[in-house]
């Protein structure tokens, strides 16, 4: 299975080839991959339902306890099926939507890679593996949102999404590490089996806050919700996939996954309920401001994500059932609606719902799909969305904390959502026919297949929840979320109760709101000045501040004068070394004057060279004096029987001289640029540095805290590494990884030097430079 998922990356990489072979049918070929994975998941389902989680072990880095083990339980099964089934629909849909696009191969590549990352994320058992896949989804979604990279809005939105989710990812990493440390376990399955209670651990609060930050940013919870509507700059298939069914649900998945171990504390319930409810209301309220169909859907997705978070927060058995049902329902109708929005955009050339109308006759199939899916969104019986909403309301009614607040928010959100659903389903298809930029006609089969399937799913699961093992799947998923066995048995009719009455009232009010939508919107427009002070303004402000700060510190530190760089570096070194040597260790000065005459001579030559280098009035003189120092050092190496070091030092000195000769004549005239005061300052810094290094060497020499590793190296170099030259054995065997790193550093430095010289030479650097420095925040 792991291999199958990893093969997905290979498949993603080969999508340009597939596009060349199969042309516009490549989408269908690629869709086979998620379809096969879905088939495998279905085939495993019976055993998961009856025997509990399925573990597929695969060690990755055993010495660090990192494994690529997959765990398949009800929750990951539900998510896995959503990802693969909707993924297949979206792939086929995208084939029609982007037909003939020059970059369709790149699109397929990113989409399949994203799908694989998402699958890995929900199947991962190891905390580290989970995090790796989490970050992969951030990166691939960045590529997808910024797909139209020639569009500045798309670039900006992609960057925003990346910043917000990756910043959250950083918090998540801290949280996962804390979780691993607190539980002493890096496997989710093992953590689930643990006897001890993590809720009582001292690290619980920081761990929870870090994990929640990660989940909230990913799932666009208030106040991080602003990136999601902006991400609508992506092509519609991406929105349909990432922003309805998958990526934004990753955070929800994480919450649901952790709820059995970390949930049900006052902190958990408080944060999740309040944040979830606030997000729900914010999303629903902001939705009706917009006439752009994708923005409408995006905000209603935020509303749904808020609902899901709230349900996980409530944490009762009832809420768990509601959670899994709502999750499934939402993924289906929202996926379908996004694809319908894409069809409308594709066929009419506009995204503005007020500019569309009377399309019912021209696009009957699309209209039907939109109608069914929107009914599910509104929560009208007999659609599956109705069951989801009923359960949600009942869960809120039965909640223990914050009931009044959540109930109010849920009720208002329901009204607003119904209005949104009506706007999407009725506005473009009924009423007077408007002129649109393109003449609309029915979409091709490939674009109708996906949304059609999802709409049929919404309808049939609503009528017959037990169909296709729906109940069994949800039972298993709810059990995984709550941590205790649960029985889910869904039905349309719950009898006449408070939830049903609330549903009916909200339905009426929602429809009323839809009728007066245009008027409401013009009233809302007066709020615009206030809305500008949202969290997004905070984000913009922070970003601008960061840019200004880095400009300031770049001007301060990177001013292009070599002497300033050296000064700064030395000062930092003095601070670090001085701190550690004077405050943590007492400096030692055990001088033993056991020196030979020739050693004195060599050191004397070196000192002379150093002195002459500082007072020399010609550059060549200074270079030669520094060279003398270098050669003396080589001599010292050889005297103390380190021929390799000696040879290296000699060669490096020689090369330095060669390089200096090459640049010598290009340098400005040798002159005194510093004032006297500066010279005194520089002298003081240099002297301090020298004294500190001297103290450091003396101290290091007299402390031996550890047995030197050289003994081991000397003893094992011939028998284990088959080499008698220990220096070389260290370089290529003991410490080969370090050497490899150094090779890369060397290569980078060389490429940098070459690039700088060539660019300067061509005179193109200035222009390119300007563009580059302006790029980060002008967009």
């Amino acid at each position, binding site marked *: 299975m792991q291999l199958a998922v990893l093969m997905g990356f290979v498949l993603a990489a080969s999508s340009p080839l597939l596009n060349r072979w199969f042309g516009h049918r490549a989408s269908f070929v690629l869709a086979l991959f998620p379809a096969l994975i879905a088939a495998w998941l279905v085939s495993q389902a019976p055993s998961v339902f009856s025997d509990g989680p399925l573990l597929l072990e695969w060690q990755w880095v055993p*010495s660090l306890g990192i494994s690529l083990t997959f765990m398949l339980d009800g929750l990951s099964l539900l998510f896995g099926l959503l990802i693969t089934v909707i993924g297949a629909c979206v792939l086929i849909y995208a084939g029609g939507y982007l037909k003939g696009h020059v970059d369709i191969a790149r699109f397929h590549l990113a989409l399949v890679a994203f799908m694989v990352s998402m699958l890995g994320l929900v199947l991962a058992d190891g905390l580290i593996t989970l995090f790796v896949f989490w970050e992969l989804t951030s990166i691939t979604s960045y590529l997808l949102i910024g797909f139209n990279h020639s569009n500045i809005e798309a670039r900006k939105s992609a960057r925003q999404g990346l910043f917000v989710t990756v910043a959250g990812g950083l918090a998540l990493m801290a949280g996962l590490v804390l979780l691993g440390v607190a539980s002493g376990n890096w496997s989710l399955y093992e953590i689930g089996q643990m006897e001890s209670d993590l809720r009582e651990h001292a690290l619980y609060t920081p761990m929870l806050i870090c994990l929640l930050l990660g989940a909230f940013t990913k799932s666009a919870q208030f106040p991080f919700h602003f990136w999601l509507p902006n991400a609508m700059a992506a092509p519609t298939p991406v929105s349909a996939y990432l922003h309805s069914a998958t990526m934004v649900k990753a955070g929800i998945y994480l919450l649901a996954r952790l709820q059995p171990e970390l949930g049900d504390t006052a902190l958990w319930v408080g944060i999740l309920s309040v944040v979830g409810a606030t997000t729900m209301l914010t999303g629903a309220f902001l939705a009706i401001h917009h006439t752009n169909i994708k923005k409408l859907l995006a905000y209603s997705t935020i509303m749904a994500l808020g609902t899901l978070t709230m349900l996980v927060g409530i944490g009762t058995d009832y809420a768990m059932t509601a959670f899994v049902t709502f999750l499934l329902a939402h993924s289906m109708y929202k996926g379908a609606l996004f694809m319908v929005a894409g069809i409308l955009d594709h066929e009419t050339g506009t995204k503005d719902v007020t500019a569309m109308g009377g399309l019912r006759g021209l696009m009957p199939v699309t209209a039907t799909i939109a109608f069914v899916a929107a009914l599910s969104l509104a929560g009208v019986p007999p659609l599956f969305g109705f069951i989801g909403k009923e359960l949600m309301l009942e869960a809120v009614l039965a909640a223990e904390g914050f009931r009044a607040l959540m109930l109010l928010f849920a009720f208002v959100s329901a009204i607003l959502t119904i209005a949104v659903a009506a706007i999407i389903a009725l506005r473009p298809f009924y009423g007077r026919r408007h002129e649109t930029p393109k003449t609309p006609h029915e979409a091709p089969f490939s674009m109708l297949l996906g949304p059609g399937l999802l709409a049929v799913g919404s309808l049939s699961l609503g009528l017959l929840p037990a169909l296709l093992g729906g109940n069994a799947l949800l039972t298993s998923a709810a059990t995984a979320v709550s941590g205790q066995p649960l029985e889910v048995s869904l039905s349309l009719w719950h009898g006449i109760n408070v939830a049903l009455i609330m549903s009916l009232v909200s339905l009426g009010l929602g429809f009323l709101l839809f009728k007066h939508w245009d008027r409401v919107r013009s009233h809302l427009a007066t709020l615009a000045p206030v809305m500008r002070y949202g969290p997004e303004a905070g984000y913009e402000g922070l970003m601008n501040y960061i840019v200004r700060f880095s400009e300031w510190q770049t001007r301060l530190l990177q001013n292009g004068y070599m002497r300033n760089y050296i000064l700064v570096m030395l000062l930092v070194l003095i601070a670090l070394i001085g701190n550690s040597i004077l405050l943590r260790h007492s400096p030692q000065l055990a001088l033993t004057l056991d020196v030979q005459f020739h050693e004195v001579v060599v050191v004397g030559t070196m000192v002379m060279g150093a002195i002459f280098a500082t007072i020399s009035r010609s550059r060549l003189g200074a270079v030669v004096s520094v060279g003398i120092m270098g050669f003396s050092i080589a001599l010292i190496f050889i005297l103390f029987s380190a*021929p*390799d070091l000696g*040879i*290296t030092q000699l*060669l*490096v000195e*020689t*090369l330095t001289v*060669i*390089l200096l*000769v*090459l*640049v010598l*004549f*290009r340098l400005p005239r040798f002159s005194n640029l510093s004032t006297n005061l500066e010279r005194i300052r520089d002298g003081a810094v240099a002297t301090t540095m020298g004294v500190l290094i001297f103290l450091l060497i003396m101290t290091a020499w007299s402390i031996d805290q550890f047995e030197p590793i050289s003994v081991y190296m000397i003893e094992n170099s011939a028998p284990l*590494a*088959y*080499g*008698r*030259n220990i*220096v*070389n*054995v260290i*370089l*290529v*065997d003991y410490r*080969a*990884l370090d*050497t*490899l790193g150094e*090779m*890369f550093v*060397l*290569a980078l*430095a*060389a*490429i940098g*030097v*070459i690039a700088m*010289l*060539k660019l*300067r*030479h061509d005179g193109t650097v200035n222009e390119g430079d300007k563009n580059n420095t302006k790029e980060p925040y002008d967009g």
Partner: protein
Amino acid sequence: MVKSGTIILNTAARFLMPLQLMFSVFLLLRGHDEPGGGFIAGLVAAGAFTLYLFAFGVSATKEVLRMVDPRDLIGVGLLLGMISVVPAWFMGQPFLTAQWWTIPVIDFKASTPLIFDVGVYLAVLGSVMGMVMALMEVDKDEP
């Protein structure tokens, strides 16, 4: 600025360069047991080419190097370094574990550290030559 050298330098360079290159290969191969190794050998080889460069100029040196761009040497060096990692993988041993094989007829110890060292050699040679030649080219075009 750096003109082609005198007749003594030219003649010496022509004979010294092959010798230095041979010496560098010698240093590279003996490195595991005696003083030497990829880094030193790479520097010696770079020195050889630099001497030639000083004597005959950039275009002549490029001819000696034939089609090989020093920048490619850097890449090949890094690649060899990475390749030397792979055999340990197949043996199921940790990353970078050295593998040794004896080639029977000439009794030569082949090993991944040797491949690695060759990688170091090429990377060092490529880096130094790349920098020196870039500097020389800048000089050449500006009188």
